[in-house]
């Protein structure tokens, strides 16, 4: 009997466990998955919690419900990987698991401790994240009692999970305050290290237009150095300062601490990974799926989902001692909600930036870089697809490679 060991039972780990259990013979291959948390979070739903659209119950289900029969699920802290010995230590080093092939899917976490002052006395009082359930729930409470002032959304540094989420947050805040009839009393500002609203030029143009239309200010090229809790200001390295009444932070993102303990990560604990084959650099029997990898594309569930098909093919090739032929193209695809009723959609990969056009789909087509009602409902419907199809490794009616069909390059 040979072993496949999967570290992390989030979106990426759960999805690949389902795919591999269907693909590999139960007599020849055992599959084990390890994670210390029992709850699976529907992370795209976190965004809706601060505005009371979703609550905790909408985004949490037991992880075990999505792990198929025939996969051993071990709830344990992961201590470290010993790649030279093909084993992983768990439970504070008290237990070891041997593997023939290892899949690292330990994701990314927010690391507010990296910015001085962020975890100060205002944390979860006037300073919030919305990348954890606790942060999103605390923010919902705070927004209810907020009757006007400066709401600042700050991106600490790149890369961070779901790169469109800060924009979606600020667009939803605009609608939220309009509904409460106090939009004229609230100043909304996005403070970002990027030169504009987004990284790629065509999408930036479309999104900057929307921000202007909604009277959302932007402070670009701002690299936060520290938070001044006393005077409620964020400061950058050149002493530029932005005042806030509520600060919504997107903290530094890091890979799991276990990666650092295993000496397998880069500066931010992301695992150096071949961007096409998804094999960990320097390790023939280790693959990396999802946010844990240092791939030059978005950290997002859609990437884990598309990449899983390529990882599965390459793992089978590796098992058979054949060259790795499947080449992941960096495909990512995100809905961007722009209000309570509209949304836009972007679709891109390593080579092609988000372009306008149409996204062909069974209930579509959805508008790419266009602000439409159907896109918003697409985002809400996606929650059902996530729990019922995606995690279980069922085929979704979208292609894994990005398609140039129906995209237009503006003049």
């Amino acid at each position, binding site marked *: 009997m040979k072993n496949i060991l999967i570290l992390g039972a989030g979106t990426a780990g759960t999805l690949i466990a389902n795919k591999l259990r269907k693909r590999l013979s139960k007599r020849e291959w055992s599959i084990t998955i390890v994670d210390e948390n029992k709850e699976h979070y529907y992370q795209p739903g976190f965004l809706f919690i601060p505005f009371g659209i979703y609550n905790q119950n909408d985004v949490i289900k037991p992880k075990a419900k999505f792990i198929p029969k025939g996969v051993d699920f071990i709830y344990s802290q992961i201590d470290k990987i010993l790649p030279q010995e093909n084993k992983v230590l768990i439970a504070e080093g008290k237990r070891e698991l041997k593997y023939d092939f290892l899949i690292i899917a330990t994701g990314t976490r927010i690391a507010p401790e990296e910015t001085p002052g962020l975890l100060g006395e205002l944390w979860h009082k006037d300073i919030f994240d919305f990348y954890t359930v606790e942060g999103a729930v605390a923010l919902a409470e705070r927004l209810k009692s907020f009757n006007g002032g400066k709401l600042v959304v700050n991106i600490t540094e790149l*890369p961070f999970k779901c790169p469109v989420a800060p924009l979606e947050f600020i667009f939803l805040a605009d609608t939220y305050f309009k509904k409460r009839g106090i939009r004229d009393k609230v100043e909304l500002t996005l403070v970002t290290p990027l030169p504009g609203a987004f990284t790629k030029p065509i999408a930036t143009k479309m999104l900057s237009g929307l921000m202007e239309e909604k009277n959302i200010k932007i402070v670009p*090229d701002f690299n936060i150095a520290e938070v001044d809790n006393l005077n409620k200001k964020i400061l950058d390295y050149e002493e530029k300062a932005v005042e806030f009444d509520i600060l919504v932070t997107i903290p530094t993102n890091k890979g799991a601490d276990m990666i650092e303990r295993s000496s397998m990560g880069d*500066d931010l604990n992301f695992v150096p990974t071949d961007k096409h084959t998804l094999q960990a650099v320097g390790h023939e029997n280790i693959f990396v799926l999802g946010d844990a990898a240092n791939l030059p594309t978005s950290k997002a569930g859609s990437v884990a989902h598309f990449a899983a098909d390529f990882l599965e093919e390459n793992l089978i090739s590796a098992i058979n001692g054949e060259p790795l032929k499947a080449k992941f193209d960096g495909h990512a695809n995100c809905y961007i909600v722009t209000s309570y009723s509209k949304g836009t959609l972007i679709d*891109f990969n390593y080579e092609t930036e988000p372009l306008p056009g149409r996204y062909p789909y069974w209930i579509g087509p959805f508008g790419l870089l266009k602000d439409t009602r159907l896109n918003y409902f697409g985002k809400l419907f996606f929650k059902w697809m996530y729990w019922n199809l995606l995690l279980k490794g069922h085929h979704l009616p979208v292609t894994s490679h990005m398609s140039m069909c129906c995209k237009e390059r503006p003049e």
Partner: protein
Amino acid sequence: MAQKEFAGHMVDVNEEGYFTNPQQWNKEIAAAIAKEEGLELSDKHYAIIEFLRNRFISGEALSIRSINKSGIVDVKEFYALFPGAPLKKSTKIAGIPKPSSCI
């Protein structure tokens, strides 16, 4: 592809003025680019430039944060040496591509 002359050498640059061939770089060229940016290069500047070039050549990602690992300066001093946009300016002077930020 455009070409530009620095200190008597023709080099290949992209539309934003970044080198497309880091091999064409030398210290004299660095000083000439720095002059265009309004900077006079000190030993500390050169030490950072060398760190950035080595890191680029070994395929590691460049970020503001990675400067802390240089052992030469911290981020605040990095800003003082290359005011405004330190990473953009220093990589241009170092003759390596502008660090691309992924989405």
